[in-house]
């Protein structure tokens, strides 16, 4: 079974090829999936790190797999990369069975592992040369060094690089064989904001060359910015897989209004407001609603007991919440609601609503 490579070669491929009927698993663009995983299981003792995972990834997209620590992200990646053997299930990468022909697959994929590891006493250029020699075909070493902006550091020992430079080298090594499919395992973990932005640019560059990138991350803003599709993995299973907007529309609809908890305001009472779906109070109050205007109106209502001037009044007013109030009160203007924040749903909300726990837990 031939596979149309997603790289530049695609434009040279005869159109016929893409028009040809393909077997059952087909991507939107009529190609076989870059990755096709069916019923993957990996156990460590009694614990199933990966528990019946099935999904497929189409060509040319950035695909991200957030999940809490220990959710099975890295294990899944390592099985797909041919680094681990699953207890059950099948894995096809670029149309080839990874378990049966790992070397064939490895020629065509690029891998950046979570822990960056290079041989000791090796300089940057030497590291690129070494990895280039491990593949049947590789890109020119200088070109790779330039592309990742490592020219100045080409003669530096790899253990003298900064975190960001090391990560760029690590990604450069993953691309030295001009792979069709690139795996990046937490490429920005532990980097400062500047270096992270830099890596984002690098990843966007890879994406522009129409290579499929699979990356794992703890950072939801990273997923939203870089990824076409996001899979959320929890306890060894994929609990959601879709584009970020659709994930948000489905799992974190509505608008969230956050503010500092005010004396005299009973968060539970907010549930009665229009469109409210969720109220969380832990120092800050977080109200998720489909009618943000109505909720905001109620919160900022100068007649609401928490907005009345004077501490004594406010405390006294607790029992009278929602009462008639009367016109002239609340001369303080703006009321007592502080640190007000109104935002739409994010992938972080999706994650929380799907797994019931925080990502960095």
């Amino acid at each position: 079974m031939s596979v149309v490579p997603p790289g530049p070669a695609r434009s040279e491929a005869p159109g016929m090829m893409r028009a040809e009927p393909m077997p059952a698993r087909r991507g939107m663009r009529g190609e076989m999936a870059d990755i096709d995983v069916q019923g993957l299981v990996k156990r460590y003792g009694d614990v199933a790190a990966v528990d019946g995972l099935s999904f497929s990834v189409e060509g040319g997209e950035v695909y991200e797999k957030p999940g809490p620590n220990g959710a099975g992200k890295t294990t899944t990646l390592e099985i797909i990369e041919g680094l681990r053997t699953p207890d059950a299930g099948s894995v096809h990468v670029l149309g080839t069975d990874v378990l049966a022909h790992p070397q064939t697959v490895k020629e065509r994929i690029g891998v950046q592992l979570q822990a960056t590891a290079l041989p000791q006493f090796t300089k940057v250029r030497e590291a690129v040369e070494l990895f280039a020699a491990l593949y049947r075909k590789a890109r020119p070493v200088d070109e790779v060094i330039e592309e990742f902006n490592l020219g100045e550091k080409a003669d530096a020992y790899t253990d003298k690089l900064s975190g960001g430079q090391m990560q760029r080298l690590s990604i450069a090594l993953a691309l030295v064989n001009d792979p069709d499919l690139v795996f990046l395992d937490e490429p920005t973990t532990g980097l400062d904001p500047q270096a992270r932005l830099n890596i984002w640019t690098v990843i966007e560059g890879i994406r522009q060359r129409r290579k499929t990138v699979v990356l794992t991350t703890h950072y939801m803003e990273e997923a939203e910015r870089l990824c076409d599709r996001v899979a959320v993995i929890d306890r060894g299973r994929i609990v959601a897989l879709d584009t970020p907007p659709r994930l948000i529309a489905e799992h974190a609809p509505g608008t969230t209004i956050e503010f500092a908890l005010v004396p005299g305001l009973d968060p539970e009472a907010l549930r009665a407001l229009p469109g409210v779906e969720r109220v969380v109070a832990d120092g800050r109050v977080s109200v998720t609603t489909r009618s943000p205007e109505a909720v905001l109106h109620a919160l900022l209502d100068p007649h609401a007991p928490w907005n009345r001037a004077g501490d004594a009044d406010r405390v006294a007013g607790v029992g009278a919440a929602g009462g008639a109030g009367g016109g002239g009160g609340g001369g303080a203007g703006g009321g007592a609601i502080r640190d007000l924040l109104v935002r739409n749903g994010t992938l972080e909300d999706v994650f929380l609503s799907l797994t019931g726990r925080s990502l960095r837990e």
Partner: protein
Amino acid sequence: MSSFRAFRAMAINEVRASVRNRTALIFTLGLAVLFMIIFGLLFGGSGVSVSFDAVNNDRTPEAAAYLKALTSVSGVSLHTKSHAAAFSDLKDDSVIAVLVIPKGFGAAVAGQGPSQQVGIYQAGGGSAETAISDELVANVTAGFAGRGNPAVTLSAPKVAEVNQVTEMDYILPSMIAYIILFSGVNYVAIGLVEKRVTHVLRRFRATPVSARTVLAAQVVGGALTVLLQILVLVAIGIWVFGAKNYGNWLLLIPPIVLGTASFVGIGFLITSISRTSESARALAAMVTFPLMFLSGLFFPISSLPTVVQTIARILPLAWASDALHQVMNDGAGFSAIGTDCLVMAAWAVVTIAVASWRFRWD
């Protein structure tokens, strides 16, 4: 073909990294040179120094010539004394042997009397020094008798044909064996464990390179590092310390290669049972240090207790050391070191086979 390219690139990287690893170099080549300096200072490069007393019961010119021949051997100091004085010296260990020249020695040498025996008396005996002294005397005596004169023999001739080996001549092959031992175990084995615990092996595994290629590159890279160090060591030994090789240089290759292979193999065994580089280091030290002292590097194996000798003779360092000393000190041919090479080859094959079978990427 592509796997050969991968192998070559990895082996080159291995050698380059090893040469850059100064700490490890100090531990192997540096320490070997230091041992040679210490030996050089202790013995002043003058070779073995031994003292004899001679009791001359035959005051003929022939007897005088014989004593003169003995004195002319470098490192020998010889004094003619009375019988009582000479044996007193022997008793308080100020000489290692007393030679007694019998009456009629001159006549026998001149072919005018019955053959005579030179008596050699030692206290206790069995030390390396007395063995060397016996050989010296035997050589001189044989040389004397060699002038067509079977009339003179030595009372207790020891028949070991040995060159006049200086301490430096002895220590050079020992230090070659030392480098083989420490580099083989440390560079290769600990290098491999470190690659495993730091996930370098896992990173290689994500490429198409095979486990066999990784292992082969580690072995060959390690062996090349050993060879480079030996070249430097031999150059220093010969040009700085004046050590001599009495044998064929090419004959050093089999014991060096096979010795290295067997220690790389032992190193791999250590690798396969060590989870961390700390435990690998500890195990490597437990193997290398006793081996260093048990295997004839600093003193001959024959001076060790029998049980220890038996253990030493099972382990490959004794065989490597024996082969290197035989070639460099005794000028032995290949037939003399064949057994040594076979034993080392067996060690190498078994250990490397076990190591490949037990190889773990992570």
